[in-house]
């Protein structure tokens, strides 16, 4: 380990550390524009110049380009280096438009900071400035090329780090241009990171444009809840609403970057239709009234028909607090549930994945980046857990061989081998592909739970166990349906699913349902069954922060708080419990009209809308108990009441890993039925934009979802005389749904893939996430 001296301070750093990083460890910040610890050093901007006083190469050097060496003596304050840095900043500012007052980056702009810090305050250059035409890059990212200082971070992230090619550099010399060949929507689902890594205002957040400066926002560390990865975010809130989301560095989870679903998925939290008051039989009431009415009526049903007549349904999008309060609710009242999964098949896959994880085989996303071979089974990271695709790309760039076993037309931003097979053939393909990992030392098996079943997950876990048995540091990485599906698996005590409860409603055993933060309407595979069940109920109570159709239909509606108001603990798919702090106080957002009447002139002792409780508080109230008074007391209560959560005491900045420890997952015996003859198998799959209930409320993301489409293998399409772009109708038992056709050469034959889309109201027709379509029920409606 080389030991060197920087500004008279000695430091020892690992071999290969750049001087700029060594200095940072000493707390010495050397200016930089092109250097970024995730993207590496390229020596383009030249602003990190230091003087090497003693060393192999002496004189002014770029500190990002030289490795720290033993005996090196470096000065960051040497006049020659400082003068050069000042010149570099002067050069960078020659063409900069100085439009800071109208630039959204102003206030958190690296160029602003370093220009001031570097001492360049008087403009000497009298020449003209070059100007560019900006491009439309879609609804998320605003382009302002005149501000560009050509650090090349954007294209290095976009092309090299994340693997998309529609943004690039054109031109040379002073006419270098960063943009698309033709203007249009950026193709990468990681494009929003351009906003974070651009050191000035070339790429800014479009939806939140002109809504506030960095210092106007309350900035709070957050955790993304739009998939199971639990990426770290920074939440910016102002006027009691979230305005902007940014990626937050995490050494264990997501590194630096997040996906655009996570960045822009938050608009559900302050949409006008959000439930903010109680509702009884369609009448608006106070929240307290709704809660007490619900408690009393549920109690009456319990008294009249026994506790078995009440069912409780939850989901994986609730915090661990809410989930544990729901379990407590059922423990104290004897009600049925809570159930956290919709069907046995998907529930069992997710539960099995959670229970298969142990301290030995669990790998974090950052550890996955160091894998030398990856086998992905029934997982489509780009759509199911986007940032995982970024991590896989980093592994691939470092030399990992990646193999995918999946029926879908996978489009991943890195090289991989795709073994396309039908969903029911995955197990077989996995068995024969296992030997691909035999030469590796650090293999990782990624297993999805969206289109697989518990059998596949177990097979993947067994494969990892076998690899570990043969001396490899093998890891298991499963993706789960929702942000806190892992927490649900840890807490579940009733071994049932929503479909079971629905059947009991139909059978007349259950007369009342309390549905807490559940997307049952959206996710339940058999909507006719659900509708029938709901009609039969005596009482439906819905507790939610989303105005789901279920909330609309409920006899009693109780609003709850979002993660931004209530915070909470969420357990990601590798069992990592992470604490989220509230980002702003609850209550109605303050409206700024700009018409001269700001601030609002109505005064009251309370914040309007502040009386909404978190869902876990409501759960305690329904149980007739007083909830713990503070968040800290609630966490202590959880540790005390649930042995599986006792490790929460050790939670630090990296969170804490919780494991199920030998818990038995929900059982599910039947595998998928064999595909009948003359049928194509329709697979309903996750899409990065569309189909995730919360982010579907974001208008800017809906724009990116495109048109509802069905993907077909080329041979299947040819057989039906269907071409790409045609409109086809797929005949289900109770009607036809029409889709635009996309054709792929690398998906499983005999399979139709439909990616979830906010405009497809699919449940009335498709019985499950897999459905058989008779070939004679595929009809071309319109030619392309």
């Amino acid at each position, binding site marked *: 380990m080389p030991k060197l001296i920087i500004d008279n301070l000695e430091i020892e750093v690992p071999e290969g550390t750049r001087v700029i990083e060594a200095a940072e460890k000493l707390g010495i910040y050397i200016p930089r524009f092109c250097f970024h610890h995730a993207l590496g050093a390229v020596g383009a901007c030249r602003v990190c110049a230091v003087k090497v006083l003693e060393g192999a190469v002496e004189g002014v050097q770029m500190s990002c*380009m030289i490795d720290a060496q033993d005996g090196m003596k470096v000065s960051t304050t040497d006049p020659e280096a400082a003068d050069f840095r000042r010149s570099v900043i002067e*050069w960078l500012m020659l063409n900069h438009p100085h439009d800071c007052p109208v630039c959204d980056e102003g206030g958190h702009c690296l160029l602003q900071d370093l220009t001031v810090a570097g001492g360049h305050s008087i403009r000497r250059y009298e020449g003209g400035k070059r100007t560019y035409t900006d491009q439309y890059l879609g609804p998320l990212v605003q382009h302002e090329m005149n501000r560009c200082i050509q650090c090349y971070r954007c294209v290095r992230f976009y092309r090299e780090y994340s693997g998309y090619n529609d943004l690039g550099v054109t031109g040379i010399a002073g006419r270098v241009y960063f943009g698309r060949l033709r203007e249009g929507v950026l193709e990468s689902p990681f494009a929003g990171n351009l906003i974070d890594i651009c050191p000035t205002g070339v790429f800014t957040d479009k939806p939140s444009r002109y809504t506030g400066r960095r210092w106007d926002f309350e900035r709070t560390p957050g955790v993304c809840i739009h998939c199971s990865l639990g990426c770290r975010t920074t939440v910016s809130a102002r006027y009691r609403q979230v305005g902007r989301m940014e990626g937050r560095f995490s050494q264990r989870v997501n590194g630096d970057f997040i996906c655009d679903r996570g960045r822009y998925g938050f608009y559900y939290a302050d949409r006008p239709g959000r439930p903010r008051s109680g509702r009884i039989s369609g009448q608006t009431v106070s929240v307290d009234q709704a809660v007490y009415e619900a408690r009393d009526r549920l109690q009456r049903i319990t008294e009249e028909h026994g506790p078995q007549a009440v069912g409780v349904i939850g989901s994986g999008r609730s915090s661990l607090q809410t989930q544990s309060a729901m379990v407590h609710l059922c423990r104290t009242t004897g009600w049925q549930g809570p159930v956290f999964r919709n069907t046995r098949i998907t529930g069992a896959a997710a539960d099995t994945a959670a229970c298969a994880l142990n301290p030995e085989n669990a790998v974090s996303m950052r550890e996955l980046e160091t894998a030398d071979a990856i086998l992905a089974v029934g997982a489509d990271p780009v759509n199911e857990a986007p940032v995982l695709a970024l991590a896989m790309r980093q592994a691939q760039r470092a030399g990992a061989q990646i193999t995918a076993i999946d029926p879908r037309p996978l489009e991943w931003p890195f090289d991989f081998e795709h073994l396309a097979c039908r969903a029911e053939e995955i197990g077989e393909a996995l068995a024969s592909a296992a030997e691909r990992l035999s030469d590796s030392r650090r293999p990782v098996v990624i297993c999805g739970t969206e289109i697989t079943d518990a059998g596949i997950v177990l097979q993947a876990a067994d494969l990892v166990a076998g690899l570990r048995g043969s001396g490899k540091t093998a890891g298991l990485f499963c993706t789960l349906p929702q942000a806190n599906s892992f927490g649900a698996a840890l807490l579940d005590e009733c071994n049932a699913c929503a479909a079971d409860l629905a059947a009991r409603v139909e059978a007349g055993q259950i007369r009342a349902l309390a549905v807490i933060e559940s997307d049952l309407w959206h996710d339940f595979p058999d909507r006719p069954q659900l509708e029938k069940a709901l009609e039969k109920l005596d009482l439906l109570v819905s507790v939610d922060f989303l105005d789901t159709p279920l909330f609309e239909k409920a006899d009693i509606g109780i609003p709850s708080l979002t993660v931004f108001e209530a915070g909470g603990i969420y357990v990601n798919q590798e069992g990592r419990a992470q604490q989220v702090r509230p980002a702003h106080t609850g209550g109605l957002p303050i409206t700024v009209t700009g018409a001269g009447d700001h601030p609002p002139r109505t005064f009251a002792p309370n914040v309007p809308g502040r009386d909404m409780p978190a869902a876990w508080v409501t759960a305690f109230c329904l149980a007739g108990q007083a909830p713990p008074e503070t968040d800290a007391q609630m966490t202590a209560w959880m540790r005390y009441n649930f042995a599986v959560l006792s490790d929460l005491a050790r939670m630090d900045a990296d969170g804490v890993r919780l494991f199920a420890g030998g818990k038995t997952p929900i059982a599910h015996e039947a595998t998928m039925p064999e595909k009948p003859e003359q049928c194509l198998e329709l697979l309903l799959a996750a899409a990065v934009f569309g189909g995730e209930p919360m982010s579907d409320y974001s208008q800017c993301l809906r724009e990116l979802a495109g048109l509802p489409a069905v993907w077909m293998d080329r041979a299947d399409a040819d057989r039906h005389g269907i071409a790409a772009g045609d409109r086809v109708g797929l005949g289900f038992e109770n009607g036809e749904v029409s889709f635009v056709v996309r054709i792929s050469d690398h998906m499983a034959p005999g399979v139709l893939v439909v990616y979830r889309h906010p405009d497809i109201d699919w449940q009335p027709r498709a019985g499950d996430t897999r459905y058989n379509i008779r070939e004679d029920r595929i009809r071309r409606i319109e030619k392309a």
Partner: protein
Amino acid sequence: MESRVLLKNRKPDRILDLAEYRASGGYSAAAEMLQTGRPADVQEALEAAGLLGRGGAAFSMGVKLSTVAEYAPFPRYMVCNADEMEPGTFKDRVLIHTSPHLLIEGMLLAAFSARAEHGIIFIRPEYENAARILEREVALAREQGLLGKNIFNSGFDFDIVVHRSGGRYICGEGTALLNALEGKRPNPRKPPPYPTVKGLWQLPTVVQNVETLCFVPHVVQNGAEWFRNLAAGPDEAGTKIYSVSGRVRRPGCYELPMGTALSEIIETHAGGMAGNGRFKACLPGGASTRYMPESMYHREMGYQSLSDAGFRLGTAAVMVFDHSACLVGATVNLLAFFARESCGWCTPCRDGLPYLHDLLRRIENGQGRAEFVPMLREMAGQMGLAYCAFAPGAAAPVESLITYFEDEVREHIKAGRCPFREAE
């Protein structure tokens, strides 16, 4: 007395064809070396001969070949840099139009030394005639078994493709050229690793200038001693083609002993100063070298000699200025070229050169101020901290202008106009 090695077969109106080239002893060096020699023989001969890269960097070709490790991976590449874009330089074009097979044989021998099987001639697109000549002659050489598989029954395979550049100055930079060949932006690469270790597609690659390669058959045939003795002085080696332009009577390419005095080049070979002008200064090696003032008029124009005096021979493109020439105006012109041709990668080059250009242009146009002079001096010096050698080269005329002709610059500022122009 012109000593003609490379240009000895120069004809006024056509190239030396393959039959003529072979009749004059062409390909005999390659035949003998491939059949009886070892790859190391070529490298050792070149190193002993002290053949320095003629593209401007003056790095020993023999030493460069020695850095291709014996166990380095295959395939390896032999790249000929024919992207002759240094302003004032026109020797490679003349060489190709004189004797294309000399170049082909040179590449063959160099490739044999590096055990490279792929040859690429990277040529600037304005040299379309030269590119067609090369394509035609490469095909003829292939027909005669001088390229292709098992050349001279030696078991050695080598073939050449002609690749036209996208046509920017920076593409001629050795490492930028490799990026351009790979289809990437022609940004220079920062060694290490050097191209001989990880070059084209991360494989060992030898990049050499046309003129350098043309010497290889001669050195292999006649030996190091012969080559060294061609030079005019003991510290130099071989001959050099000087591309003489500017205010001389007979501009052109002159192959002379390395180290021939500047005065001799101008007076004896280029016919003296044009229009009875008096020598004021010259750029000795293309646009990216320092101005040589009058005091250097009798200096020997060799790599070592100029380097000792603080100058660079570069490509030996001698641009001559007489006392009627405004060097501020000339430098503005050069800077406009460099500011336009920067690849845009690093800040000093991309933004600093236009700044230098702007300051100097203001001086030339009579809007200069005294404080511009120290600014020019400081910034020209700081160009040395750019990513590659482009910006330091571009700044060399500016720095030497301020050093040797500061009075002329200040005269512009004082007069508020260019003293070389007629007063309006």
